[in-house]
Structures are given as C-alpha cells and as structure tokens.
C-alpha cells in the first residue's frame, strides 16, 4: 500500500488515513483521533498557504489547520480523483 505524509498532499487532493508514524507522541494521536482523524477517514487538503504556514484540511464537515510537526506524521493513501 502506497502511503504519503498528510503534509505532502496538494491543494484539492483527497486521501484516506492509514495510520500515524511511530514518532508521533501519544498525546498528539489522541487529540487527532478525537478531532476525527482516524483510520479510513477521508481528508481533503483545502489550502497550502505560502512560506511553510500550517495547511488547511477538511475532515468530515470540519476544517482544521495542522502544522508540519503533526501533518508530516499522519500517513495517507492518496485517492484517485473522483474516488
């Protein structure tokens, strides 16, 4: 299964959550899960602001901004357009 970090998704790209990297602290996983970032959930990258600013993602009907510290360790399986 081909997985990529959430941070690398392009604007408009959709992907399914496949897990968290081991280096991500448990407290971070807990908060992500509580917010809806759990296995199988579809995430859409809405915005990639310039200068390395945190990126904007949609999960369910909620929009979140994640810093690279977190988004680089959420592993995603990219979905084909229209999937």
């Amino acid at each position: 299964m081909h997985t990529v970090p959430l941070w690398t998704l392009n604007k408009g790209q959709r992907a399914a959550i496949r897990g968290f990297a081991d280096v991500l602290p448990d407290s971070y996983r807990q908060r992500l899960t509580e917010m809806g970032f759990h296995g199988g959930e579809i995430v859409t990258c809405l915005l990639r602001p310039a200068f390395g600013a945190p990126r904007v993602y949609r999960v369910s009907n909620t929009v979140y901004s994640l810093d690279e510290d977190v988004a680089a360790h959420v592993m995603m399986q990219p979905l084909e357009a229209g999937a």
Partner: protein
Amino acid sequence: MNRRVMLVGSPNCGKTLLFNRLTGLKQKVANFPGITIELAHGPMPAIPGVTLTDYPGSYSLRALSADETVAVEQFHAGLASPEVSHVVCVIDVTRMEKSLYLTLQVIRHARRKGKHVIVVANMMDVLDSHNVELDLDGLAGELDAPVVPLSARTGRGMPELLDRLREDPPRQVPEPAPAPEIRIEINPELLIQQQAHRLAGKYGPRGDMLVRSQNRMDAFFLHSWFGGLAFFAIMYLLFQSIFTGAAPAMDAVEAGLGAIAGWLVPLIGPGMAADFTSDAIFSGVGAFLVFVPQIFVLTLIVGLLEDSGYMARAALICHRPLRFFGLTGKSFIPMLSGVACAIPGVYAARAIDSPRRRRLTYMAIPLMPCSARLPVYALLIAAFIPQTTAMAGLVGMQGLAMFALYFFGLLFGLLVAGLASRRDAEADADVPFILEMPAYRMPALMPLVQKSAHRCMHFVTKAGGVILSVTVVVWILGYFPNGGTDLGTSWLAGIGRIIEPVFAPLGLDWRYGVAILTSFLAREVFVGTLGTIFGIEFAEQNMVPLVERIHSSGMDLASGAALLVFFSVALMCVSTMAILARESGSWKLPAKMFAVYGMAGYVGAIIVYQGISLLPG
C-alpha cells in the same frame, strides 16, 4: 434545594451564546490560578432557583494539558454534586462528529452518576439556510437522550429546552462502571470513536455545502498576498485601537482621578494625610486604573476576532515564524499588545491553549517596547542623540535610534522565548498545533462587552492591592524624615546613596539611582522623579529643561546608552509583575523574570557603557 444545570460542549459549538441566552448575561466567572479556564455561573431567569454553569469547551474528557485537567476535574466534581439535576451537552450539527465524541463520553460519565443528559443540536439556523433536514429523533433514539433542535443565535428551540429543564429529571439509577476484565478487552474510547463516526455518518449533514462559503473566504484571508495585506490591515487597526483608541478614556481616567483628588485633598487640609492621599493613594490608584481602558479595548477586539472566526486564521498566518522561537501563532496578538502595554498583552495570552507556549509568551511580552518606555526613550534620545539627518534628510538620527530600540525589544523578546523553549523540559508534553478553523460568523457584541468588563474588574481587584502596597512603601521612603520637602534628603535618597556603587559602573550617580528605583512602580516615573530631583516641574510635558540639567549633571552618551539598554531589558513594572503572578498562578515566574531580566539589563548596560567609554574621542 437550589438546582444546578451543567452546560458542556466542544469548542466553537455555540455553547457560550446559549449560556448568555439562558442567563440573560447575569453571570459570575470563576478563575483558577495559573490556568486560563473559566467557569461561568448564572441564574436562569426563566426557571427560578436554577443556576447554570458553563464549562470550558473541550474535544474530550481525556486531558492533555494542565488547563484541560482542571476543566475535566471540575466537570467530574459537578457530576458528583447532588445539586446538579441536568447536564446539557451542546453539539454543533454542522460539524457533528467532533461534537458527538465528547457527547458520548459525557453521556457515559453522567449515567454513572445518575444524571440526566439533554443534547442540544445547535446551529439549526445554518442547516435551515441550506434547506438541510436531519433525523434528530433517530439520533435521540440511538443516544437514548432527548435531542433538542435549537439555534442559540436566533432563539429557535429555546422554549422546548426550557420546558425540558423545568421538568424533574426522570429517576436514573447510577450505572456501574464496567468490570476491570471487560475494560481490558474493550477499549471504551475506541468504541466511542467508532460510534461517533457512525452516528455522524448516519445523522449528520452530507456533502460539503456547509464549508463551501468558509472555503471561499479562507481562499482570500489565507491567500499569500491578499491574506497578508488583510492581516496587516487588521493588526494595524488593533494596534491603533489599543495605542490611540483607548487614549481618550485613559486621559479621562487620569482627569477624573485628578478632579476627585482636587476636591478631596483640600478638605483634608495641609499635612501628611493630605500628601499621602494625594501622592500615594491617588497616584497609586491612578498608576494602575489608567490601564483599564486598554484592557477593555483589547479584550473586546480580541473577542471580536475570536468570535468572527478570524483569530484562527491570524494564528495560522503567524505560526511559522513564531514557531522558530518556540512560540505559536496565537502568541502574536499578546506580543503586539505588549508593544502598547504588557498588562493587556498578558491577558490576551489566555487565548493560547498550550500552557508551555503561553508561559514562553509571558516571558516575551515584558520585553516588548511598551508605551511606558517611550518617555524614558524620548528623554534619553533627546539628551544624547543629535538631531541630524542622513541620506539627504530621509533618515533622522533620533528617529533611527527610536526604531533601533523598538526593533531591539522585539528581537530580544523573541530570542529569550527561543532560548527558554530549547531549555524547556516540558516540550514533549505540549498540546499539538491542530487548530479548528471555525466558520466565519457575525460576533454578538453584548457578551463581549460583558467579558471585557469582567476582565477589567479582575485586573482591578487582583492586581490593585499589590500595586497600591508598593506605591505606599515607595511614598513612605520618599516622604520621611523631612515631610516630603526635599527628596534629596529622604530615606529613598539615602538608599540611593547606599546603592550608588551599583550604578557607578554605568557612570550614574545616586540621583539616577533614585529615579531608577522609583521607576519600578512604572517606567515613566523615571522622568518625573528626575524632574523632582532637579527641581523642574512638569518634566513629562516639557523635557527641554530636564535635558539641559542632565547634560550639566555630567551624564554622558555612554551612560545614556547604558540606561537605554537597562530600560529595554529590565522588568520594571510592578503592575505587570502582579498580573503575571495572577495569570501564571504564582510569583515564581515574575520573580525569576525580574531577577534574570534585571541582571541581563544591568550587565548589558555595563558592557555598553564600558564599550562606548573606550571609544576614542
């Protein structure tokens, strides 16, 4: 027996707006030392004898930080109270899954304590505007709890909620916690997560229509160029509001106190009592009451930015550069406020959810070039920097010096935060930067006005005593033993002469030492004290004679530059220290900052003095 109702919900679910509707804005807010959570209590006029308690918004009952731990402990304490009859759990129907996770946890814990839960499906007006209908009866059946469709904004559904709260709750037998062997096999949090996901999928709104308009606005406000311009425009307005918008009210406070003193003091008659009333009480009270308008204006504007949804976008824009210094995007507004005055800046830091980054922000704020430093900078620059220009008159040397001092303060504050963050042992126990981007909304003004008034009252009641005490001590030292006729022969001057060797390495004599001592009340007092010592009235308004006396006193450029460095770095404001102690929960942090910044300022001043003195000519 009076009844209590608990109001809980996830962040940005509209819970506080509902609280204000149910209590009619009559509330008391309980603060907890060292953390920023608040519990608001208010009677419900529609149901006499019932008090509503608003708990801090939370994504879950599993705490990650000290703030969240206190919030969760308070929640469990509330559930255990026999006075509590109902738990009202608010969900945002437009973003159902994140709300349902907490709701399912709340229902589980409430049932164990035999408490009745009412689920409020808030923001129905948003669904109505998109012609979206939900099967809330089905949801109520699955939750085994009544679900009341409601809009806290429009008031729709309020009568039904009140009817349910008027009813005596059905008798519920507390459910036992699962046996330990079952808990080992089944992870209850995982079950709740799966159930929240399933229920949101089954009963929540479908499609992305609810976030489309938000996405369009985000495309502008987070655009690389337009977003940056909008950000600077909004921050400029905020800064202007704190710096100049609050100025008339601050002047009015000063003038009002002056008028009261002018009326009262002559009634007392000449003598020590009148001097004490005039100089210690009114000057002392005035020294901190003058900050109240700034605190009010800043709290109001920060509230408007939060409620409108823009604050989350501003935090996103600032996060990357500030992260390098161990701070967060939410540190920006407190630090910007600190450029006007550290006190409202410290209050604004409440918006930072990470306790660690909030503490780092506290450390940076007092180093921002606040307005109290301005008179000191203006005096010393006028005394030692020539009024010459460079680059064909485009750059004035005095303006350049002022800019350099402001830039130094900002940079030094960031560097201190950056250094402290790298030495911080709690780095791993931090709250991650995962920021919910709330929908853009029109803020409700009255609750924000009330919140701002409450914040001002908190400042007056909590910091006022400390500030007044220090003012009285300094007044006594300056008044005795000669009855205030000559500051030069007072106990304060005596102390100044004793500590003169401390200031000698900066080329300063006892007079400047006394002025520095008194400036610990507030930095700008330095100018007035020097005026008193040199016998110049209204030195703050007219600095020219004071500049001449400084020159004739033998003070040179090296000493002036050393003083500028000292004032830029040292924490010399008892009001800021008092409010830092209140907000951080102890005097440990402000005491440490006072010692470290004071020593750093002193050593830096010596280096600058000795360095300039070594220069030829």
